């Protein structure tokens, strides 16, 4: 638990918390990006370069942009006047705490469940690549198929809208 870890943890948690608390949706999205960035730095702190940079590339570079585009295109970027909290916020808080407790318990127990694992497994990008197209090629292909279907679906949705405006 070094000094750097605490700074990164503060960035991640602070970003995530601000994303929930702020009123303006675009500000929330930007705060969420800070949380993504903190998460990537945590990966880097664990010597997981590939996971860390992929996190930045995918989440900061693409998912955050997707989120802000969605916000702007649905006209949700205006700051609401009243309170943003729903009446069931206490229930939500309890559910979140329960999920956190389960996850925390699982993480703490994992050291006992896998006694033979090294504390810091080292894997280069090359090893990850070989594993992805070797042992885990089937899940990779299934994911690729799923993403292709999603892309084609998005294109079809967009096409449908165009036909309506023309006709």
């Amino acid at each position, binding site marked *: 638990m070094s000094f750097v870890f605490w700074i990164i943890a503060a960035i991640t948690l602070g970003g995530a918390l601000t994303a929930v608390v702020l009123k303006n949706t675009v500000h929330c999205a930007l705060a969420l990006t800070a949380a993504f960035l903190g998460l990537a730095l945590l990966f880097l702190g664990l010597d997981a370069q590939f996971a860390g940079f992929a996190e930045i590339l995918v989440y*900061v570079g693409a998912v955050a942009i997707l989120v*802000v585009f969605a916000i702007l295109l649905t006209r949700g970027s205006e700051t609401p006047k009243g309170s943003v909290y729903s009446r069931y916020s206490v229930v939500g808080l309890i559910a979140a705490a329960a999920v956190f407790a389960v996850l925390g318990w699982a993480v703490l127990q994992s050291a006992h469940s896998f006694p033979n694992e090294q504390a810091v497994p080292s894997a280069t990008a090359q090893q990850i690549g070989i594993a992805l197209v070797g042992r885990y090629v089937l899940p990779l292909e299934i994911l690729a198929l799923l993403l292709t279907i999603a892309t084609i679906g998005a294109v079809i949705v967009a096409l449908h809208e165009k036909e309506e405006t023309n006709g």
Partner: protein
Amino acid sequence: MFATLARNSDQIFILLRDWLLAFLPMMLRPYVSVLLSVVVIVCFFPALFALTVIFERKGLGRIQNRLGPNRVGPYGLLQPIADGIKSLTKEDIVPTTANGFVHFLAPVVLVVAVFMGFAVLPMGRNMVLVDMDCGLLFYFAMGASTELAVFMAGWSSRNKYSLLGAMRAVAQMISYEVILLLSGLAVVMITGSLSLPKIVEAQNHYSYGLPHWYIFTPWGLAGFVMYAIAATAETNRSPFDLPEGESELVAGYHTEYSGFKFALFFLGEYLAMFSISGLGATLFLGGWSAPFSFLTWVPSWIWFFSKLMLSIFVFIWMRGTLPRLRQDQLMNFAWKFVLPFTLFNLMVTALWRFMGDGWLRWAVCSALVAAAYVLMARVSMRRERFAPRSYRYAE
């Protein structure tokens, strides 16, 4: 004697750094070493930016049959200094409705993200700040982060031109980033490494006095052309400069920026150009390696920066020559021609990788790339119907 001189001039910056470090206690050396390299990068590239601006204005003046800046200093060479002082002393105007914090943060995030890319570029033999196992991935991750800064600038200004410019810029950068990544991937497939120094090492061989650069292979040539197109679009340079098209959008996402914040955007654009040219040189043009085997005695960093400045010259040349594209042309070009061609090029690269040495793979791969290019151009031209312009969203 001559060999030692050549070696020393090749490693002059490393030797200089080590000489400076020798004055310090052992404990501080690693930190100061990194700090020194960072300071050199942070000082050198803005200086190169100043030089490039005057070069660009003079060059554009030459292309457009006029003189260009010629008032400040001899031949107008001190113009960048005057511009720098001007932007530093100008009033910083923030619109009253603007979102102050995000408005301030956007140029800072942009310049920081662009500077980070230089960390993994090998600018000469042993001249790389961090030799990362995932260097290329790091570069692309940092490149992707600039998009958010552009969006922040456009959105926080609360100006329709800014927002439209930012939306255009982000849509364009996301589309062309896919191509940038995929064309870089071909090199990774052949080298088997994401580390940029290793990619340069793999190209630093000679046969018959000619280098083994990737641009001199069929897949490499196709990949390089696609990379160059994507790099031009990614840096918002002409002919892909729609996000700041002054005839339509005033100045795009930085319309509401003035003074030093505007200068930061300007700096960010040119730094992105330098770093993306440097990456292109590293991936396809052999990085710091010499173009002929009898020229290997010339210091490696001279080759790297020559290649970089050559591509900057091409950027300027294109800006002076080509008209701006329309938004739909830009998107159609990216998704219907460049992306399929890049994907096909990946398959050709795989074929090249597994066909082994010999003339057969040269013939097969060249034929495939050429056939794909001609066929795709024919097919897309056949679908093109020349009719009166139709407007979809502006009726």
